[in-house]
């Protein structure tokens, strides 16, 4: 779609209209007020998510910080009669890599290493371009956003697998598995990226001028 066509579109923001996210009632913005409430259901109304970019940045930075220990610290400690083994995610990938087990290894690699980092990078890209009021590739960016939003929750699978393993493999004293510190950081990465995605307002991509966006940053 051409830029001109986008420019001609009408938005609720331009019209000063709110659509209640809860009850769907259309209402006119209360100009000058700090906060607007839906006249019917008293839901908080906003043209764009409040401080969306700032909040997204905050969650994203927190996720990025947690991403480092999540990958450096071991996620699982396996204790067998032969001794105790603590493996990080990457060690797990290497461990699983075998002529027959490589698909599983790839799944772990994608779900646990590539997707979280891709999410962080994608969100960072979206934030930067939105902040700059870029009008380039907006459809690709919104598609990227949807993909990040959709895929985000699946990263939790890794956390679930590990916690299930820890809960089921308790053959003490022969063998037992315990979650290690890395797993908590990994779970934090997943949750924080999900929160970041939630805080990001994709409508900002479509707000044409940088000035309008800055108003909600």
């Amino acid at each position, binding site marked *: 779609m051409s830029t001109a066509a986008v420019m001609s579109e009408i938005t609720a923001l331009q019209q000063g*209209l709110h659509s209640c996210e809860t009850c769907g009632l259309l209402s006119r913005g209360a100009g000058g007020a700090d906060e607007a*409430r839906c006249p019917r259901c008293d839901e908080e109304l906003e043209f764009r998510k409040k401080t969306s970019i*700032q909040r997204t940045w905050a969650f994203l930075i*927190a996720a990025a910080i947690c991403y480092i220990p999540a990958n450096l610290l071991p996620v699982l400690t396996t204790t067998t*009669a032969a*001794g105790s083994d603590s493996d990080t995610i990457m060690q797990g990938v290497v461990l699983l890599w075998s002529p027959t087990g490589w698909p599983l290894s790839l799944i772990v690699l994608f779900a646990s290493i590539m997707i979280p980092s891709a999410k962080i990078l994608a969100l960072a890209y979206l934030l930067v371009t939105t902040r700059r009021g870029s009008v380039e590739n907006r459809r690709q960016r919104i598609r990227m956003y949807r993909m990040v939003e959709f895929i985000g929750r699946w990263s939790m699978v890794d956390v679930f697998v590990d916690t299930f393993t820890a809960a089921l493999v308790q053959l003490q004293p022969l063998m037992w598995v315990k979650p290690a510190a890395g797993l908590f950081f990994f779970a934090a990465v997943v949750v924080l990226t999900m929160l970041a995605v939630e805080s990001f307002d994709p409508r900002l991509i479509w707000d044409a001028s940088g000035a309008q966006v800055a108003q909600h940053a």
Partner: protein
Amino acid sequence: MRAVRKWLSMPENEPATPAIPNARAVTRRRTPISLVWVIPILAAIVGAWVAVTRVLSEGPKITIVLDSAEGLEAGKTVISYKGVAIGTITRIRLSDDHLRVLAVAQMEPRTEDFLVDDSTFWVVRPRISGANVTGLGTLISGAYIGAEIGHSTIHKTDFVALETPPVVTGGTTGRVFILKTSDLGSLDTGTPLFYRRLQVGEVASYELDPDGNTLTVRIFVRAPYDKYVTPKTHFWQASGIDLSLGASGLSVQTQSLLSILIGGVAFETPAGQPMLAEAAPNTVFTLFDTHAAALAPPSVGPQSYQLVFNESVRGLEVGAPVEFRGIPIGEVTGIRAQVKLKNFEFSVPVTIQLDPQRLGVKVFNLKSGVDVEMLRRRLIDSLVAHGVRAQLRTGNLLTGAALVAFDFFPGSPPVTIDWSQYPPRLPTIPGQLEETEANVVEIINKINRLPLKQIADNLNKSLADLDLTLQSTRATMLSAHGTLDRANGLIGSNSTQVQQLDSTLQEVSRAARSIRVLTDYLDRHPEALIRGKPGAPK
């Protein structure tokens, strides 16, 4: 169309449509910076805390030089002290000259105490020796590195691992002594050490001395038994079963079942010694081969003597005991034959070593300056003058082992010892063996002298007579046989005589019955004897 156009133009033309209600305005104080920034700050703090604790929990790094990394695995092999992991091998690589293995270990925090100059490290692998099975745990978990804490204060991070695990670990108290031996026997590291059959220590290590002739065996005696080791203590090899079959018979010496299987070292302080001070650590002792050798008084200055026997020395061996009335005083050191072609005199010079001290004569317990040699000669001279002679004896009838015995033979021809020749020759008298032999020969000679032919002739004649006698006896027997047959016919059941005898006996029986009737009657009627039977016709 109009309606559509109107709908389309509506927002532009009528910005404030009355149908759309106004949102309710709420006033609230707003902070310019979102509270959400607490989250990344929190994440940063937690991350930093984790990083700091990780760094702080890292102990020092050390390098251990090993001969081989067999069984070791980087990241898995632990350094263990008293079963507690105090470090982990993180990297294993070859030394630059490719001769040794360098293992880099990450120690646990607060293990600096271990990193001193005299701390030791060694690889623990499963070790199954006779005495003990150690490191069984490593069969499953793989080898690990054992550590022993040192006492030095000099800090060190590069260590060379011991080749064999030390016997004494973990602060076991006791003392190490050194034994010198020429033969290791069945000793090995860990071989038990016995004191009065009680296991009190073990062999810690052994090594061949640089001269290649002796071995240095280090033993560890655990406290409190180490105090029983005195400078006069004797050590001997209690290796397995000490079976000796000598002139003194079969002797079996063992310490314990364990030592039968794997050998051992025993020690003992000879009785009768005054209370002695404890031996200092690393005192050097001699390791004797047998208990007897250990407890025998040290043979100080044994002297060689020669004995010449004119008899068979069968059963006499080098090493055979030389006894004085049963007390061992020396041993045979050489046997050879000597023949004089002039008169075909065959003799066997036997070299012996005598230790007169073992006789209890304290020839050496003298002030210095006294000619010990002269005293010794005087002693031997007086003994010989009193009739002491050497004799070959059979020590063991079963094995035929012989020994040289000294004893008093009063009435032996006097002999003087020629001290000028070496070795001096001591007088001998024929041994019991020879005497026995002579007796046997005499008996055989007597037997030879018997008139055997005459005896045999007489015997032959007697036998002929006997034959005749036997023939006449046979005829007599035949006639006797006929007589017996006749007698048999006489008393057979069908013979007339028997029948007659039978009828006679019946008659007698009847007669007896009538006599009984008569006597009964007479009993009742005694008058009948006079008057006759009443009623009977007169």
